[in-house]
């Protein structure tokens, strides 16, 4: 088996102790994925495995064997920014930028969760096929990604803009 990372097959590391985060950064030099707390509290290391956003710091590379991993490097082609990245710039959705790859990966998967009908803790009607996307919904759904610069308002606006454009 192998791990498919941004479309390319890579052999999993021989040492089972290696986290997916360290594997991406130290072995493959995909340094877009960031080390924040390294204990599941900040979301900076968020990547997407088989369509679901997860924390690469608490995932062993061995657990990803046979699966498909998408990192921030895999979200845009040939250096072109995708609409979410453009919206983060337009809305000042970051200052230092350290949490941004995790924010973008999380937001990418979050928008797909909304389309699939995933509810959140603040969704008033659990029976609704699809939650109405409000700023409160975005804040709750993005609460796993901390921004120490305090760019959360811009992040919410950026995600809202992309969601609105997609729905139009």
């Amino acid at each position, binding site marked *: 088996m192998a791990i498919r990372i941004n479309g390319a097959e890579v052999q999993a590391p021989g*040492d*089972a*102790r290696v*986290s997916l985060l360290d594997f991406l950064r130290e072995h493959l030099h995909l340094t877009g994925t960031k080390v924040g707390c*390294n*204990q*599941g509290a900040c*979301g900076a290391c*968020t990547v997407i495995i088989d369509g*679901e*956003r*997860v*924390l690469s710091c*608490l*995932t*062993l590379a*061995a*657990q990803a*064997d046979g699966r498909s991993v998408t990192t921030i490097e895999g979200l845009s082609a040939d250096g072109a920014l995708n609409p979410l990245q453009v919206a983060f710039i337009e809305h000042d959705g970051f200052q230092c930028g350290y949490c941004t790859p995790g924010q973008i990966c*999380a937001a990418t*998967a*979050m928008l797909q*969760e909304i389309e*699939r*009908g*995933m*509810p*959140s*803790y603040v969704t008033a009607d*659990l*029976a609704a096929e699809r939650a109405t996307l409000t700023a409160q919904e975005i*804040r*709750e*759904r993005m*609460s*796993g*990604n901390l921004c120490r610069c305090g760019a959360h308002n811009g992040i919410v606006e950026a995600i809202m803009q992309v969601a609105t454009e997609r729905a139009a």
Partner: protein
Amino acid sequence: MIPLAYHRASSADEAIHLAGAPGARLLGGGTNLIDLMRKGVEQVSDLVDVTALSSSIEESDDGGLMIGAAARNSAVAAHPLVRSRYPLLSRAILAGASAQIRNMATVGGNLMQRTRCVYFNDAAGSRCNKRAPGSGCDARGGFNRYHAILGASPHCVATNPSDMSVALAALDARIHVSSASGTRIIALGDFHRLPGERPDIETVLEPSEIITAIEIPPSAVAANSTYRKVRDRASYAFALVSVAAGLTLRDGVVEDVRIGFGGVAPKPWRALRAEAALRGQPATESAFMAAAATELADAVPLSGNGFKIDLAQRTLAAVLTELSGDRR
């Protein structure tokens, strides 16, 4: 360095066999275990990944639900039958951790997660009877805002951090377990132990047993149910106090009620005393507060968490008032 081997079990029998080795531990999503291994709290030589075992969520013959132990938390919370028949369970899971962690975590692993007591998690610098039996407890005289007011012992005041389990306690869920010698079913209320003199033993699960499924019986009272979590920030934080409750009324009188408390005890706390006090009573805020006071009568505050007694009572009263809605 502790060498580590990783195995992926393809069947319950294989998992039981592999987990029998000394130093072996079952691995679900790893959101708790990987962190504890890195912190030196858990010493593991063999990880047995059980996420390929049953993760199905299906209606059982009696109209309840059977959930495979490897089901991801997010899959359970999103399932149409959970959302429509057991909204308290969906909301409890959605109140826990973050979306990323819920995507990783399994329901079997959630039942087995360890306390978030900071002294338990600090292997290098703190005394903890749960981590190192007989070493003492630094929480009792330390930062104990998040610690227990019910069910604790002189040896340990740590709380169980699970939101999901609080809802499962209110639902009378049953844990299906397997070992080489057979299978058995454990009521969720009996699954987690109170600390007593052995806070290091947290459940009645034997070392040779693995959790295979969680069964939720059909429940009329769960149709009108919810979960409310009070915490230090609006999201992505552990509970100071949480309440899972379901309520049915007839002519303004409590016909049936189920209540679980989180954040206040070493195990998901089923509030049987409050339930008994409420059945047949008018659905009024004063009756809700009185029932809550009955449940909290034995509460013992620590230096930093006395506020939880009032908070638990008011949260329960607020939740039951919400569930009473226009039906009062």
